[in-house]
């Protein structure tokens, strides 16, 4: 199914893009992160990231649906 991914900060730098649409078999954010981390060589382990789907924080085993917007959030540094 098609998923939309947004990338921020160092993840965007590493991926070389700020968004993409992927056709993925991942059923959860956990599976999706394994997939994209391998593609782009993301160094973060999942425990250092948070994940949001459609603009809200979710757990790593949240069930993904077609068309979902998925974001892996590296540690924040605002303020």
């Amino acid at each position, binding site marked *: 199914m098609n998923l939309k991914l947004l990338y921020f900060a160092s993840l965007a730098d590493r991926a070389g893009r700020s968004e993409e649409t992927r056709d993925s078999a991942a059923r959860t954010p956990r599976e999706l992160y394994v997939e994209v981390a391998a593609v782009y060589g993301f160094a973060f382990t999942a425990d*250092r990231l948070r994940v949001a789907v459609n*603009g809200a924080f979710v757990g790593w085993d949240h069930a993904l649906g077609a068309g979902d917007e998925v974001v892996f*959030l*590296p540690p*924040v*540094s*605002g*303020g």
Partner: protein
Amino acid sequence: MTARRFRLGEEPIDVAAERPALDHAAAGAYASFEGWVRDHNDGRSVRQLDYQAYPALALAEGEAILAEAVARFRVREARCVHRVGRLAIGDLAVWVGVSADHRGDAFEACRWIIDEVKRRVPIWKNEHYADGESGWLHPT
């Protein structure tokens, strides 16, 4: 719907313009915090920086923090504005304002809000150093 308590700002923050939202005849205390862009961090000389936000979630999470503050502390009103985009040394990066009947509550709520904003809101800082390097900060 009430006015937003948390906002992202593309333009310089006008503190004086934010203040009337906090006025209350019963409020005897106002505490505020401002984060300014420093010329150094971790021993490196900083020239400028960029703040990047995930806007939809940053607005929702910031609004949730301000609502929690109003529920947890005896305050009359609380607001926060965080800049995004490019900032120079001395620029105002984030402002928090809290009004309350008593000063202890105003100080505690103000401190709690900036701590939570820094901990939870999806905003990232990219520092540009004097040596030409730059880097996104991802505190452990």
